[in-house]
């Protein structure tokens, strides 16, 4: 059982990391939302697998919460916000795509170099999981700071949370209370961001014209 357990956990964790890179790569808001939904779904699968392997039934609830809220409710809500507020559908980045990806790979290498020697005592599953989770967290931060669009910044924040939950489910015996508080904080953050959107929208309206004029060659 040991080897297959490790392989599947490793596979799910790495797929989440690859999807984080996918989030960096996307240029359309709907693509970003879809990728994030997929990542949250994989997080749910990873949590469910860990529940099966560790025989810890409360992790099933974690998986359910991740699936319901993060994979379904939040992406759908964000999609409706984008449509209703007529937010720009393209993602504007601070650096070019190549430089962002290079920084991303550098962050992954950094987290591996950091985690593996430090956790020498723990078991193999925990070490890999921690390294992957730290990479997802760092990439979530990178997404937040290299995107000018507020929606993608929110998605980056959510992706960071995904990484934290991945780290938490990888370790044996995470208490249920932590999961509830995490879920609540997600909801609170969502509400706050929703409030921000209404403020940003005013700014967007005055900035919109400005953006359109300085956009590369595409006049209205």
């Amino acid at each position, binding site marked *: 059982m040991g080897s297959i357990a490790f392989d599947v956990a490793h596979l799910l964790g790495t797929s989440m990391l690859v999807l984080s890179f996918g989030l960096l790569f996307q240029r359309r808001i709907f693509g970003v939302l879809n990728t994030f939904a997929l990542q949250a779904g994989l997080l749910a699968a990873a949590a469910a697998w860990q529940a099966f392997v560790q025989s810890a039934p409360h992790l099933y609830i974690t998986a359910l919460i991740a699936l319901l809220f993060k994979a379904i409710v939040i992406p759908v809500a964000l999609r409706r916000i984008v449509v209703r507020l007529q937010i720009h559908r393209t993602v504007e980045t601070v650096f070019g795509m190549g430089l962002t990806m290079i920084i991303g790979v550098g962050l992954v290498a950094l987290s*591996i170099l950091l985690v593996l020697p430090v956790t020498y005592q723990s078991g193999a599953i925990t070490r890999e999981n921690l390294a992957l989770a730290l990479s997802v967290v760092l990439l979530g931060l990178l997404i937040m700071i290299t995107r000018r669009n507020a929606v993608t910044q929110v998605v980056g924040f959510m992706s960071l949370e995904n990484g934290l939950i991945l780290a938490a489910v990888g370790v044996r015996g995470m208490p249920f209370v932590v999961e509830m508080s995490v879920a609540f904080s997600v909801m609170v953050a969502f509400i706050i961001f929703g409030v921000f959107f209404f403020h940003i929208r005013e700014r967007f309206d005055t900035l919109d014209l400005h953006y359109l004029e300085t956009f590369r060659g595409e006049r209205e």
Partner: protein
Amino acid sequence: MTAVALQLLHLLLMLAVAPALTGLVRKVKALLLGRRGAPVLQPYRDIARLLRKEAIVADSASWLFRVAPYLVFTAVWLGVSLVPAFSLDLLLAPTADLIALVALLGGARFFTALAGLDVGTSFGGIGTSRELMIASLAEPAMLMVIFTVSLLVGTTALAHIAGTLLVHPVGLRVSLGLGLVAITMVAIAENARVPVDNPATHLELTMVHEAMILEYSGRHLALMEGAAMLKLLLYLSLIACMFTPWAMAPPGAGPREIGIGLVAWLGKMAAGGVLLALFETSIAKMRVFRVSEFLAAALLLGLLAVIFLYVSKGL
């Protein structure tokens, strides 16, 4: 069977199957698009027709223009004969390892690019300049995949890679998965498939590979098209050899095992063709400068694959 006979069979089999593979891909694409499509054996008839025609060569073309099709075709055919398909026992296999194989294909691309510039028209230049950009990113991505596989297995010789992966199954290795994704992206770019280049386009401004061979006609065009078909077969065969080496006949096997290997290989090629057709119909062609990002992603996936090998093998 003796080694020489096996190698000859391998050589001729590749030549025989390549047009059928292209025909299969076109047929499946047509069916998915709701058309009936040309018969699977149509590429054979196309090549035969082209071979019989007179070759028209431009006034400003040099000897390089006329020699390039033979060189390109031979290089790709030799390359595809060096990739183990149904048997691990290949006489010419020690001639070139993975890196030399990539360089051999690079040589074919070098001469195709020069042929695009030879006549002195702008369309050839478009094709060559775009091909140079695509190649400059696709080759490093391929080399990163080679790095991953060689780190795992300890060699870059294809026969030994396949043999080692057959004997010691490595399980669900994430690095191999990432490497598979990376090499698929490279294969799509190198074979001028959607989303990098549309092989069926008639709009010159969207062409990459077609633009380089725009001035070719008659038997020269037949050879260039044949080389493109062989290249598709080469990449599918390479992916099958490195990532799904099951049922390949070990060295010194009898006719029964070779037969099984043959059938398995034909099945793998057919499956690959169908998957390619599915992928091509489900995605749109990218703008030319998005291709560089696509390939940069492939390169970085390759880098990630190597880094993850360090993780799973332990530092």
